[in-house]
């Protein structure tokens, strides 16, 4: 190990499996990277994040892995003796037990389809994930509900934080511009309902966010895209519904994920900067 420590990739660069990110023993591998001998390699396609000497990646693609306290959109695929089975846009279905489904009293022997029927979508919160990824969800909580009407679109789950934006700022922009109702599940399902043309614009915007998520300056770019499309003047703010859904989230459950990495690079700073003109 006589080799000098050297960083071979840039911060916020797209890195790919097997790419050498650094040599020498000074740097430390974290998620999405690994050490072999005196080199650190990427083991997942993602955006490299260099935090001091720690190297990690934010994934750019991949399926949804259920996580406790995530708010997701699920689809009813089965009615069980004791609740409902939901499809979660992941390899693992979830169970919504009777007791966590509603504040209403459910009589013994009641027809469960009256509450949630097959093919219906619900916004729910993951309460438990076992080591085999058996998932329990609950509908008891602010903003958790059955979704009526509208349409569901699928996005790449790792792009969800960008589509939500910082404290729901991106969702708020889209709602403001299009007047659509919108709900984003951490599992990559998005529910939209609004005037037909406005929905089309919302979908177009979401696809643009997905595609350009790795290019800095996303929030500003989306804002001006929507302003141009609608002729409205838009404000960057936060989304009430998102805040409500997440206020009961156990604080500091994942201190790092909540901040910093979920935001776009420079997005927050850009907001504080004086306007260019």
């Amino acid at each position, binding site marked *: 190990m006589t080799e000098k420590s050297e960083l071979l990739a840039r911060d916020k660069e797209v890195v790919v499996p097997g790419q050498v990110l650094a040599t020498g023993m000074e740097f430390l591998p974290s998620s999405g990277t690994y050490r072999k001998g005196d080199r650190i390699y990427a083991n997942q396609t993602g955006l490299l994040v260099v935090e001091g000497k720690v190297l990690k990646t934010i994934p750019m693609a991949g399926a949804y892995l259920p996580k406790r306290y995530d708010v997701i959109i699920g689809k009813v695929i089965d009615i069980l003796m004791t609740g409902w089975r939901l499809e979660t846009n992941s*390899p693992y279905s979830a169970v919504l037990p009777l007791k966590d489904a509603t504040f209403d009293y459910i009589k013994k022997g009641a027809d469960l389809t009256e509450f949630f029927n097959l093919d219906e979508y619900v916004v729910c919160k993951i309460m438990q994930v076992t080591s085999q990824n058996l998932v329990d969800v609950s509908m008891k909580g602010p903003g958790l509900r059955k979704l009526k009407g509208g349409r569901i679109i699928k996005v790449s789950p790792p792009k969800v934080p960008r589509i939500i934006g910082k404290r729901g700022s991106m969702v708020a922009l889209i709602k403001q511009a299009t007047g659509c109702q919108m709900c984003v599940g951490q599992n990559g399902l998005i529910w939209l309902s609004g005037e037909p043309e406005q929905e089309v614009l919302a979908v177009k915007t979401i696809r643009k966010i997905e595609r350009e998520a790795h290019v800095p300056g996303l929030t500003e770019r989306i804002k001006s895209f929507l302003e141009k499309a609608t002729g409205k003047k838009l404000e960057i703010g936060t989304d009430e519904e998102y805040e409500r859904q997440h206020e009961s989230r156990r604080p500091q459950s994942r201190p790092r994920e909540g901040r910093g990495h979920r935001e776009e690079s420079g997005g927050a700073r850009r907001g504080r900067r004086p306007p260019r003109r």
Partner: protein
Amino acid sequence: MAYKKRVDGRKFDETRPIIAKAGVIPKADGSGYFKIGKTEAYAAVYGPRELHPRNKQDPKTGVLRCTYNMMPFAGQGDRVRPGPSRRSKEISMVTELALLPVVNLEDWPNAVVDVFIELPQTDAGSRCAGISAASIALADAGIRMQDMVAACAVGIVDGSVVVDLNYEEEAWEEGNVADIPLAVIPSTGEISLLQMDGKVTKEQLMQAITQAKPVFERIADIQRAAIKERYDAVTREVKQNE
């Protein structure tokens, strides 16, 4: 009468021109394209997703499942009958084994990652092109993998080591031809696909493996560049519009 000049004039360690792309199949969770000469492979990854039948599930890890298929018009000569054949089933299996060592599916117990490989046209080296495309597709799908898998046929033609034989060269009749499809994990130098037909000495085999090493590094670089290009192209487009 040694093999001095290759049938298509290439250098002995020169592959045919390669084109590689990522993200070519929008419906898939990840996809790759790998064209080498006139051999062309598309690969799509679906998953990790729920695995049926349940008895194939592994509670410790996700399962990798590969399917190799030539399109009916992809063969040199007669139409290839659709549906699985002994050949396609064997190639599907060795493809799976070639990719398995780099792929880490421990986060996905009981799930499956499906890799579908389709070849619209072939001119020898189709299993290797399939593996190279599949490796791009897996990385594009965000699957955790320690490295790319680069695959290419290496051959011994009349005692000389050549890389990436085409159909004409494989069928060369004036001397002894051995065809050795190889898949290599570049960061470790390990080999995850090894087959051969033809006659060689042990020394020739080891010589072929050693001499071809730089080729696999080159192919892995092309694969990695393809995945990055998917994102870089968007970055360029955004910058242009600003």
